[in-house]
């Protein structure tokens, strides 16, 4: 049982790595109080999911989905769907990153700190 598990994990090594990075990013997003670190954690998390998704489209021995020499055979190219989804996803994560960074700058200007707990307490106690 356990041996099977390990063997399977090694077979799916891309997914394994993706899941580990997802966990790291998730923990950082939850644990770290620094806003910049939180943003990095979120980016790691998203990138991990993209890695997971893209590895799903990969097929051993096939080429990138760009038609060459009018060969239109399924066995020639990898699955194009994950690539398209990841492309959309990257745009979303860039946008969200930019917004979070702008929010960080704004909060820093007001509270002179990056610690989200400190900011929350100052804003509650100080009434600002």
């Amino acid at each position, binding site marked *: 049982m356990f041996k099977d598990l390990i063997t399977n994990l090694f077979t799916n090594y891309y997914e394994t790595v993706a899941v580990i990075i997802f966990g790291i990013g998730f*923990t950082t997003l939850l644990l770290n109080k620094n806003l910049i670190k939180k943003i990095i954690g979120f980016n790691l998390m998203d990138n991990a999911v993209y890695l997971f998704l893209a590895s799903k489209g990969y*097929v051993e021995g096939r080429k990138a989905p760009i038609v060459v020499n009018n060969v239109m055979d399924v066995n020639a190219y990898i699955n194009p769907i*994950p690539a398209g989804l990841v492309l959309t996803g990257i745009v979303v994560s860039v946008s969200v990153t930019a917004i979070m960074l702008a929010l960080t700058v704004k909060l820093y200007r007001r509270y002179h*700190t990056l610690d989200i707990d400190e900011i929350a*307490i100052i804003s509650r106690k100080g009434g600002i």
Partner: protein
Amino acid sequence: MSKLKENYKDSFSQKFSDFMTGDLEVPDSIHARKKQDRVDKIVEADQFFSEFTTSDDIQRRELYQAFKHRRFVKHANKIYSIMSAVIGLIIIIILLITVAYLPEFGNKSNPDNNVVSQRYIENGLEETGAVNIVSGMILDYRAFDTFGESNVLFIACCCVLILLRNDDDEINPDEDVIDFKRDIILEKAAKFLVPVILVFGIYVVLNGHLSPGGGFSGGAIMGAGLILFANAYGFERMERLFSYSTFKKITFGALLFYGVAKSYSFFTGANHLHSIIPLGTPGAILSSGLILYLNICVGLVVACTMYGFFALFKRGRI
């Protein structure tokens, strides 16, 4: 080790970080005065931006510190960090067990290599006219997602505009001028690089349906070129080429064209009407129906947005 620490001031990383913070020593007296001016003005601006005076600030920080070192809060923090670390570990373990039971990596009989991808690959060229199947897929088969995606960019730009735009133009009328230092190396490099980057970006956008790339990557490259130009020559010069009204017009025009074109395509598709847009010969530059024009629109929007992010972060307006 101690030797290393002594030489730290001359090390590359220190210089790099000095360069980034702008603390390079300037021997020239004029430059020094300019720098002083700049520091003064930035301090002024900072004072404007900070909502409360310094003494208030210290008081608040002390309040926080006192709060933070109460025994209860300390314990709560500790418990919270242990809890979240444990949650992270649990999530990793659960997902690892899941991954072990997922379909094999790189196997061609996986569930996702099914009729959907088969049709994309076998008929993609005929039905969309795009040689790059990914481009054809995101801009024709699944165009609604991509329309949503370009709206995400638009809304993100609006959000950053809400957060970082200076409403009062008089407060620091020339922050970009004072914040800008001429750097001869950067200028010379930019002189060569900017045209190359821009042309490469345009190439990637225009060839989005023929080769890897497309609106988004090409637009990001073009945006990077614009950012480099603004960094090397300053915003004042940039504004001659690219002002806020240009930004607004380009974004508005591109998104509106995108919306109208895609609505037409959706409408004809759903009502089984014949679309008048020709697909052209596959492989030619003017082919694949709307994809080329949509790529151009997305490219323009992305380039403007990326440059807009940069300008807003740097000086508070586009």
